[in-house]
């Protein structure tokens, strides 16, 4: 097991290193300097000073080693768009609302999804099942920004139940959270239904029935646990969808989060900020995948004791 974890962590570091390197050189490939927008207003001498200050006059390899060296110490460089502010610093001030929204959407969404999928599988082929299937297809299909637009238009503009935008209290989180949680909910409901159906049709459930175990106990003691274990695997795709979602939803609801900041950085070519956020997303994603794999091993006894699943 320890060997397996070590191997996975090495892979993780290699992947991150590749991403950092690729990002760096991709950014260097871009024509012009990041100061193109202000270039017209600056004299050549001023421009030189600027480039010097950001170390952009060094040869590319030197810049590269400086960058990687900084990375190891947790230094992601300095943002171009905000005067001299460290990227790490900017990320830290922005990550709060995003993390809050993401966690809230993930937790509520997956719990609702699991319940929905479970009810659908128990009442298989009933109206509950059909409704939950339709909800799941809609949730997976309709883009989050369309959904967010709908929510904002009706709940905020038309009916004025919730505030349409900004970030000033719990009621401000309601609409973005709903917009963000639809996908996790749909994917959980679907997965849970399939897993539950499979488990309920299995021999060991029939054996439990043959023992005279009551239906409730069969559901909660035997079926639920076995069906829930594989559901953990959707946490990976769920994280990706949340990261994608924050980019658009924070923009729509004017949430001062990392996603909104990232979109802004893309639009003004703030390369250090883009690279920093990109790396952070990668670390998050890889970390979540690793944690899910380890968690799976802990929860499923078949894997725990045979040590490491390939």
């Amino acid at each position, binding site marked *: 097991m320890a060997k397996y974890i070590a191997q996975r962590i090495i892979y993780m570091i290699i992947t991150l290193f590749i991403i950092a390197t690729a990002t760096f050189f991709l950014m260097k490939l871009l024509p012009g300097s990041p100061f193109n927008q202000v270039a017209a207003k600056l004299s050549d001498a001023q421009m030189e000073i600027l480039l010097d200050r950001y170390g952009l006059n060094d040869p590319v390899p030197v810049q590269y080693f400086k960058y990687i060296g900084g990375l190891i110490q947790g230094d992601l460089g300095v943002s171009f768009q905000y005067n001299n502010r460290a990227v790490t610093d900017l990320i830290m001030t922005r990550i709060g609302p995003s993390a809050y929204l993401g966690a809230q959407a993930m937790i509520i969404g997956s719990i609702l999804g699991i319940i929905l999928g479970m009810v659908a599988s128990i009442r298989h082929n009933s109206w509950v099942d059909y409704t939950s299937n339709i909800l799941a297809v809609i949730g997976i299909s309709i883009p989050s920004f369309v959904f967010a637009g709908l929510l904002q238009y009706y709940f905020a503009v038309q009916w004025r139940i919730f505030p349409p935008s900004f970030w000033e209290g719990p009621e401000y989180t309601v609409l973005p959270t709903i917009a963000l949680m639809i996908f996790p909910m749909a994917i959980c409901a679907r997965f849970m239904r399939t897993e539950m159906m499979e488990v309920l049709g299995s*021999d060991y459930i*029939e*054996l439990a029935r043959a023992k005279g*175990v009551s239906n409730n106990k069969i559901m909660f003691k*035997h079926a639920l*646990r*076995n069906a829930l274990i594989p559901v953990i695997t959707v946490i990976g795709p769920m994280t990706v969808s949340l990261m994608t979602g924050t980019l658009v939803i924070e923009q729509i609801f004017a949430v001062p989060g990392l996603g909104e900041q990232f979109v802004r950085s893309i639009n003004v070519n703030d390369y250090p900020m883009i690279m920093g956020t990109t790396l952070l997303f990668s670390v998050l994603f890889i970390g979540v995948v690793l944690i899910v794999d380890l968690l799976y091993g802990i929860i499923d*006894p078949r894997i725990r*004791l045979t040590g490491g699943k390939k």
Partner: protein
Amino acid sequence: MENILEVKDLHVTFDTYGGKVQAVRGVNFNLKKGETLAIVGESGSGKSVTTKALMGLIPKPAGKIPKGEIIFEGKDLAKLNDKHMQQIRGRDISMIFQDPMTSLNPTMKVGGQIMEGLIKHQKMNKAKAKDRAIELLDLVGIPNPKERINQYPHQFSGGMRQRVVIAIALACNPKILLADEPTTALDVTIQAQILELMKDIQKKTETSIVFITHDLGVVANVADRVAVMYAGKIVEIGTVDDIFYNPKHPYTWGLLGSMPTVDSKEDELIAIPGTPPDLMKPPKGDAFAARNPYAMKIDTEMEPPLFKVSDTHYAATWLLHEDAPQVEPPAAVKRRMKGFATADASDEKGEES
């Protein structure tokens, strides 16, 4: 001996997308106290469905028992609701499943799976149930039961798992044990061990066993009586001797003819031609007629009743009617019948010495 279970005119149907499948079409039999009744037949003949009906495990709402009675201790199990069936399942009637690799819950410790029934039916507390579970594991021949009880199913081999399944079935000293092909999924050597174990346990506990199988070799080994099922009906029922030495139904002849025996000299096996009928539209008359080389005109017109051969032996074939031509079983089956006789004799000698 008194009957512990009486099955009368049992019918089971399943609603499927294609239509209604008549899986069991009027099955009658009695189970006596302490005996082993084997039910044999091809897959799809309704033998497993019959046992599921006895357990009240016909999947609803697709499956139904439209007609028939299952009388156990004065109650008709076919009409009991699920709550009452839960009281009987596992306590009075329990079941051993076919595939030990899939019939244990992979995320629950073996001990917990055995204890569940004890806690439910015998109102034992956890500690007591645990002691009993250890006892049971010991009874079914699992070494180090005290440690094994805290392990998960995947830590057991197939044969060991089947022993656990048997321990679960035996937990509450059931009056009836339904064994649905309990050895089919196991290696031959393990098969013999499990069969010995079951015989042994039956001697100790005097449980009645219904043994489902398609393996006639196993039948000869364990059963007192045999019921042969075809297309949802019992076509011949009798003692082991009746069925093996004096079979009357051409389907039974076919089964015996298609069974390989270790010591038979000739290597010819007789296959039964054709396939079983579609039970969505059961044919008129005798369901076996289409595959029966001795078919008569009446077989296509009318279902044969159960003709009495002796007090213990009945068969549903028009060949037993007084107007029917006298036919002999195929020569190969006859030779085989003799073969069984000698094999059995040597078997018994072996046991005595």
